[in-house]
């Protein structure tokens, strides 16, 4: 075969039909890049589907900075701050990764070791933050009610959202208690039941004249959710079927259910990538310590896992924009 291919030897190192370095890159690196390309297409499929759904419900989609407002150990309303911190952590761990690659080019084993270590720590902190964010999202903040049509109604006082716990004072009258395997019917447990019953919420709404109902509908001129008058709110509340606290795949107090579905799916898939990146980084980290690459004479393996790690960061940049900012 070789003899039949009229490629001068100097031209090798481009796409040359099976040389050890097509495109002047080793096969391992080239395939890592093509894997990253295909993975990028997967992620863009998710984000584009998110975009479609959001466009479909453009006048009622939850407003992200009203959803993600929490920072650990601090009380109060801080939209975006925590996600921004997470973004910094991930970008910084990308920097230590690229420094590890750089040190690898110079064959400095101890430097590579320490930079890899810092990268792994950064990744673990990021995943931990992500878990905290999920926990906050799942537990919810305010609580809301859902109508028979599937619309979520929230409660506001003086234009600010107020949690059910802050105004529902009427006693619970439906006698409902959590079924567990121990006391439930036929030894079956059940999903967590809300802290308040619908009747309780309605009664408290009627008893508090300064509470208003806010619908999902966005006034596109002001880009704010609509707040109903007391009478219109009472009319809407007549159709309420359930109380929603927090978020899961069936319902969420923030509004459209698809919002929480996409949140769990996209950030979850990204988090899965971060976790696998950490595991791969740890393996390579130990190989560096054992001197595998020192013996091999190059640290290209560090470069390859570095590509994967940067890709995880790259995806987060887009998730950050399209989930939290736009």
């Amino acid at each position, binding site marked *: 075969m070789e003899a039949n291919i009229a490629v001068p030897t100097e031209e090798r190192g481009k796409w040359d039909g099976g040389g050890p370095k097509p495109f002047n890159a080793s096969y391992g690196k080239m395939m890592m890049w093509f894997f990253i390309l295909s993975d990028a297409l997967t992620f863009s499929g998710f984000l584009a589907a998110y975009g479609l759904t959001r466009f479909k419900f453009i006048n009622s989609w939850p407003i992200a900075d009203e959803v993600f407002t929490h920072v650990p150990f601090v009380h109060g309303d801080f939209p975006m701050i925590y996600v921004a911190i997470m973004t910094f952590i991930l970008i910084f761990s990308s920097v230590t990764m690229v420094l590890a690659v750089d040190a690898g080019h110079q064959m400095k084993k101890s430097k590579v070791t320490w930079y890899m270590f810092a990268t792994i720590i950064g990744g673990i902190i990021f995943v931990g933050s992500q878990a905290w964010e999920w926990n906050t999202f799942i537990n919810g903040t305010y609580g809301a009610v859902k109508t028979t049509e599937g619309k979520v109604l929230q409660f506001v006082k003086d234009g600010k959202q107020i949690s059910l716990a802050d105004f529902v004072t009427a006693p619970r009258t439906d006698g409902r208690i959590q079924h567990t395997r121990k006391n439930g019917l036929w030894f079956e447990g059940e999903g967590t039941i809300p802290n308040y019953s619908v009747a309780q919420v309605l009664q408290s709404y009627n008893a508090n004249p300064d509470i208003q109902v806010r619908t999902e509908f966005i006034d596109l001129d002001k880009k704010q959710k609509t707040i109903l008058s007391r009478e219109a709110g009472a009319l809407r509340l007549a159709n309420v079927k359930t109380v929603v606290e927090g978020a899961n795949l069936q319902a969420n107090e923030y509004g459209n259910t698809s919002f929480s579905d996409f949140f769990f799916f996209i950030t979850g898939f990204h988090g899965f990538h971060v976790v696998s990146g950490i595991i791969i980084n740890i393996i390579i980290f130990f190989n560096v310590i054992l001197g595998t690459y020192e013996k091999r004479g190059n640290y290209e393996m560090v470069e390859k896992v570095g590509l994967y790690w940067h890709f995880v960061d790259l995806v987060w940049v887009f998730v950050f*924009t399209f989930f939290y900012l736009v």
Partner: protein
Amino acid sequence: MAHAHESNTKRIWIVFGILSIITLVEVYLGIIKPEALHLSGPGTSWLNWIFIILTLAKAYGIAWVFMHLEGENKWFRRSIVWSGVFLVSYLVTLLLIEGGYVFDTLSPLVRW
């Protein structure tokens, strides 16, 4: 392939600085949401355009410097970047048009 084995540390930190500044600007704009930018703009708001452009700038910085695309063989780079950019913009364009159409069709039927 980085043939040159001299250290690029300084450049890495500069790029980190740029990425950080872009993120800070994004977060700042996202929190204050200036009305002039937030409530008007072509297609979507000006603010969203700013976010998208800054995001692409960040992606460029990460891919070119951190992932070292700038040092790869020209056609290797193109095989990755052109394929990705073409397919993603194709998909996004179609799905967003479709989403807008579904909204136009369904929203008159929704009673708020």
